[in-house]
């Protein structure tokens, strides 16, 4: 079951780090700043077949626009509550604050996120392209 698909949402600055980590079986969605993510984007990702979503942004305080990663954390917490209410485990969604040269943290999180997906299996979503 290596076909688990994980979406990584990151900001402009992180894009290069995420690509350098070249994680297989993952898709990358880059936005001008993490502050742009709203709940609908993450919920849409799950709806379209993502087994897990990692939100990767700069360390809090380093965001070029100052509030990007704070807002992303608030959004992730809100989505986790909604997922729990709907019946999807909140462990499938994680936010990670790292500095551009710390790709290793992303790889580690990616690995144990895979284990989470292995343990929990696919959220059998009818509409998702499989």
């Amino acid at each position: 079951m290596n076909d688990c698909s994980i979406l990584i949402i990151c900001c402009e600055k992180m894009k290069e780090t995420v690509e350098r980590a070249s994680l297989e079986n993952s898709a990358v969605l880059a936005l001008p700043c993490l502050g742009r993510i709203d709940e609908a984007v993450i919920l849409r990702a799950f709806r379209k077949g993502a087994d897990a979503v990692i939100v990767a942004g700069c360390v809090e305080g380093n965001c070029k626009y100052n509030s990007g990663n704070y807002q992303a954390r608030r959004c992730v917490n809100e989505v986790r509550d909604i997922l729990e209410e709907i019946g999807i485990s909140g462990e499938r969604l994680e936010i990670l604050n790292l500095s551009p040269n710390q790709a290793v943290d992303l790889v580690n999180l990616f690995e144990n996120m895979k284990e989470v997906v292995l343990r929990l299996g696919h959220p059998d979503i009818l509409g998702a392209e499989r």
Partner: protein
Amino acid sequence: MILIVGGGKSSEIAAEEVIRQGAVPLRLVLPEETFSFLPDVETVKGRLLSFTGVQGNFQAEIEIDREVKKFNVGAAVIAVDETPKVSDTDCITLSSILENNYLKCSGTIVILLDAKKPSRASHIVAVEKAIEIKDNNPDCRIYIITPEVRTFGLDELEYCKAQKKGIIFIRAEDIKHSSGKMKVTDSPSGKVLDITPDLVITDEEQEVKNAALWAKAFSINLYEDGHFRLGNVSRGPVTSMRNGVFLCGTASRALLPREMDTSARAAATRAVTASQTPLMLNSAEVDEEKCASCMTCVRVCLFHAPSINEKGKSEICRDLCQSCGLCVNLCPASAISFKGVSRIELRNAVDDVLRCLHE
């Protein structure tokens, strides 16, 4: 052309560096401010009314003795320095020694360093001056009383040299100073010392005059203690929160004399390069039909870009918008957007990115 604000030392170095980089500096000083004359730098006394436009193409409106002139500048450097607060007590201050030299005084001299907001260099200046006074007349007695001796890095050698020359440092918190007599308790040992000084020199509090005035004109923020807020770490050391506006001088960060020099030159260099690389960010736009005038965008944007216009709807100033998309996310009526991050575009982006993952 580069606009340089401020009349102090930092602005001189910045202007000099701008010329060295081959650009033309325009120095702006407030009418009531004093400034040091620089031969080949045009200095203007006036009030900055507005600073619009983007990096590489700013328009500065300056009111010079009741006549409003427009200047087109590529970038700006705010090189304002802290000035000592005029203290009401009549004793001699550190800065006054620098001007009219008291080097020839004798007897017991006490240098008291306990101002709440001293300039970062006050301790080193005090130690250097003490050594000079001691060299001039070796038989005078000098005490330096301070809760903590703040000489950094190489200046520790000065501190050591001063002690070798017999300058006595007392680390004291409670100092009673009345009618010519001083009672000082040395904190580490607790012993009380009685000193009758012939001359008392103190260091003064520093303040940034008119910081709010400049911040408003340039739409940049201040720290709580009134200094100019630096841009975020990822923007670089001498940046402000606005592209194309750079900060140096002690009004943004407490600096040692050497650091003032490097920070002024750095700001000038960045300003010259910025003026030659115009920045075209596509700013967010508001669909006035949908706007509920709920002020969320005004409240969340740290760059003061959105404001409510006279029609009661939100309007985003193109010059200040960093196109980060925070307001696009939080606008409850989804009235704000710009190319690439609208709700539909983002929804399709998620669909595409996941579809090609599954192929």
